[in-house]
């Protein structure tokens, strides 16, 4: 009840006209930068920090929160319409979302992403309101062993996203894992697969892998079918809005995505990608018609989009309660707090109650604004697909290139983007799925670091993964998911091409 009255007080602070204006400015800006590949909310907030210094802290934070949520939402638009995920958390959205867009259901995909983001953002903010300190302390129980178990679970879960051919899916996954190996090993400082190229020492940015495989590969593949293939993209078919069936297929994935995303965001080393993988895999398993996956299933958009927005809210939990920034944006928010002489941590809630609760209230408001802003825009965005293909692909290639450049401001990265794009083109020609490669590039390095830290802390004993209860539980779930199809196959006579458990 205490939190509730504080929240009411927070709304009183946030609901002044000027603060509403800042929230609107934030979500608008956030949506725009989210749409640009390579430019994320972290960079935007960093660029705005000096501008906002003259503002009172509450106004600045309300705008930053809007940018953060807006950026998470904006990334899904290009993922769905142009198959160009602007950030790694939107990769899973691109998989089914773009298939929907090609089938003329882009409007529904964007709508389920917008509403799912709203639902997830609001529920996760509510969880943040009422359980932040408890959640943050629970998250600290996760150590390297638990994180490794979690990455293993994600590997097992996404094996269902490998596509029709296990062999091709594995080839794609291993391609991503090899890309993930490149660079200096952070635990020993040894260079791997960098072939003496200094620009490769810092590894290959996942954004470049995703944009290269999806956007550049897609454009090259589209070029290869000019004059051979009748127009394969249908800009719009049927209603632009979600049908009754869409709603009934979407609401459960939204809730499940939120349930996966929020705790993952709270974990100090959880990341926002893992819950999107888990959500995609979960929805695929639970779907009434699993064959819909791979042909544009709305569940595959609703779940991961909800998951990445809930994770974004989750990230604020360790930031506000412990002062631990667990994402780039959170780190910049921390800097912003410090700019105003505030120290996030256990004492923030008591010392600067008005600011904290005003900020939390503005998260709710920002979510509503995003929905109000983006639902009408769905109709506008969908028109992107009506752009003549020569201009559409030319535009995609230019934006992808400038996005890759802006990550590290390096021309080498553009070359890397094109090389990976070439690989993506070949993969498309050979019908090898793209998503597993991105998943491998994200999860591989994570899994390795957590594994080695856990082993080091346990003097090299592998039993650590089984003797720690959380880790053992997660591994048990992973084993269950891995073995389920095998058991199911025994039972049903129809053989199913779905093997799991790539070793990573």
């Amino acid at each position, binding site marked *: 009840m205490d939190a509730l009255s504080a929240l009411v007080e927070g709304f009183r602070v946030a609901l002044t006209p000027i603060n509403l204006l800042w929230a609107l400015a934030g979500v608008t800006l956030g949506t725009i930068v989210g749409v640009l590949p390579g430019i994320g909310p972290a960079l935007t907030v960093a660029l705005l920090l000096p501008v906002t210094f003259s503002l009172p802290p509450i106004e600045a934070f309300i705008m930053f929160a809007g940018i953060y949520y807006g950026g998470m939402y904006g990334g899904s638009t290009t993922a769905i319409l142009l198959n160009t995920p602007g950030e790694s958390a939107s990769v899973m959205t691109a998989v089914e979302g773009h298939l929907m867009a090609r089938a003329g259901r882009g409007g529904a995909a964007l709508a389920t992403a917008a509403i799912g983001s709203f639902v997830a953002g609001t529920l996760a903010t509510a969880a943040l309101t009422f359980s932040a300190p408890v959640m943050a302390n629970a998250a600290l129980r996760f150590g390297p062993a638990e994180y490794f178990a979690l990455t293993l679970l994600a590997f097992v879960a996404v094996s269902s996203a490998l596509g029709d051919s296990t062999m*091709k899916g594995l080839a794609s996954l291993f391609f991503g894992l*090899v890309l993930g190996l490149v660079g200096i090993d952070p635990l020993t400082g040894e260079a791997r697969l960098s072939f003496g190229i200094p620009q490769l020492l*810092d590894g290959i940015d996942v954004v470049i892998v995703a944009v290269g495989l999806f956007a550049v590969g897609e454009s090259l593949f589209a070029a*290869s079918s000019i004059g051979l293939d009748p127009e394969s993209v249908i800009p719009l078919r049927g209603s632009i809005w979600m049908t009754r069936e869409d709603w009934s297929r979407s609401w459960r994935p939204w809730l499940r995505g939120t349930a996966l995303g929020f705790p993952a965001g709270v974990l100090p080393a959880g990341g926002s990608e893992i819950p999107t993988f888990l959500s995609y895999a979960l929805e695929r398993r639970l779907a009434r018609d699993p064959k819909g996956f791979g042909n544009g299933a709305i569940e595959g958009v609703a779940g991961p989009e909800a998951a990445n927005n809930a994770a974004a809210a989750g990230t604020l939990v360790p930031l506000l309660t412990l*002062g631990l920034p667990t*994402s780039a944006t959170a780190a910049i928010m921390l*800097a912003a707090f410090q700019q105003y002489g505030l120290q996030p941590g256990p004492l923030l809630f008591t010392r600067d109650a008005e600011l904290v609760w005003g900020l939390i209230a503005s998260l709710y408001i920002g979510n509503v604004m995003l929905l109000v802003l983006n639902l009408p825009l769905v109709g506008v965005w969908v028109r992107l697909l009506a752009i003549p293909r020569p201009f559409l*692909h030319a535009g995609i290639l230019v934006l992808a290139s400038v996005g890759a450049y802006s990550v590290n401001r*390096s021309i080498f990265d553009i070359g890397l983007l094109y090389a990976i794009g070439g690989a993506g083109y070949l993969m498309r020609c050979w019908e090898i799925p793209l998503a597993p490669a991105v998943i491998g590039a994200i999860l591989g390095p994570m899994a390795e670091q957590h594994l080695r830290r856990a082993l080091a802390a346990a003097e090299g004993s592998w039993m650590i993964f089984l003797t720690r209860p959380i880790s053992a539980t997660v591994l048990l779930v992973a084993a269950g998911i891995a073995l389920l199809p095998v058991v199911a196959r025994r039972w049903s006579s129809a053989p199913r091409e779905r093997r799991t458990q790539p070793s990573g």
Partner: protein
Amino acid sequence: MLCRWPALFVLLSALSSPSVAAQPLDAHLVIVAPAAPGGGWDQTARALQQVIERHGLARIVEVQNVPGAAGTIGLAQFVNAGGGNTRSLLITGLVMLGATLWNDSPVSIAQATPIARLTGEYEVIAVPAASPIGELHQLIDVFRRRPEAFAWGGGSAGGTDHILAGLIAEAAGVDPRRVNYVAFSGGGEAVAALLGGHVAAGISGYSEFAPHLQSGRLRAIAISSPSRPPGINVATIREGGLNVEMVNWRGVLGVSGLSNDDRARLTTLVSQAAHSPEWQKVLLEREWSDLYLDGAAFDDYLAAERTRVGRIVARLRGPARGAPIVAGQRLVPIAVLGGAAVVFGALVVTQARNRRRFPAPSSPVRNRGAVIAVALGLVMFLVLLQPLGFIAAASGLFVMTANAFATLRSRRQQLWTIAVAVVFIWLVHLAFTDGLNLPLPHGTWFDSPVLGSLTTGRAWTR
């Protein structure tokens, strides 16, 4: 058809140039923090950013995080890919120095241009509140009994934290190579692991532990300063009976081969920031000691530190060549490369077998020409971006891609395509440079003396 491109490029380049030179030199300063967000370098970078911006010493100061391998990844990128950006600073420090030596890194701090030493911070050894350890001698007892079973958590391998763990081991009479050190890639992650009790003891800078020491969730065991710093009531390592002290200094470097003028300009900027009351306030808040040093004195200090740390790292590694093997170090690379070889091999074999069994029923025909045309456009963009600048190169890419995709080409459509390209590229350029303050290449071609006279003709486009 192709012969018209050069003319187009010159036209577009001329259009692109007006926006180039207008910015003052220090409009956009980049501070590279070679660590994950939340760590000490990141905090230094962001504090410096705030002070520089507040003083209007630069219009926009952007902090870039390039985490990993104790800053050597950041250093490598700064030295190699920094692209001679004379308006960028790299946060450096003892940790980076240690790491370059630890890794036998191909890049060295000596390749960058020293600008200034800014601050120093003492290292604290801390344990979770629930730990039975209360004082340094107790910690040493536990550690000595079985060094391998005592997990130390801290920043990257070979960094200050790691070096301090090694020095403590050595002073306690334990072979430094037996230290079980768990490296995390950022202060935030290491603190979280210590708070959760996943390591027995943590080593980090005082500021990173401070909020948790104050809230009572962590307990400080010892500090690495020569005597107790004012305001910090923690026993020194010396008081605990070990002859060890260390200061984790931090400073800033410029790109390699910086001209004397550029170096002086950066030094002035940093010096003004470091002598401002705001910076002094930051030092007080973060409990960093002011160790400002620049010019030749900093050159000498850096050289002396290189010698000293080189000696320490060699001792940490022991007489035998090579870093100690970290558990599982080879496991993942072998599994990944081996697995990849098996999977790729199997894929090739099955594809070949399938092809033999079902001899290409509908091997899809592809429009190779269009793919090659698009690929040529990409290569052209890559090659011309630096010399011709973003607007010209991107317009070329746009037009070439659009032409590859267009099946019918009339002169009118050509002109229409070029018009769309120019407008679109202008908008993108505007959004990135003016909207987001992210500079895009403006074309080095125009900087050359030969073209200098030609580009004076730019004025008419304004």
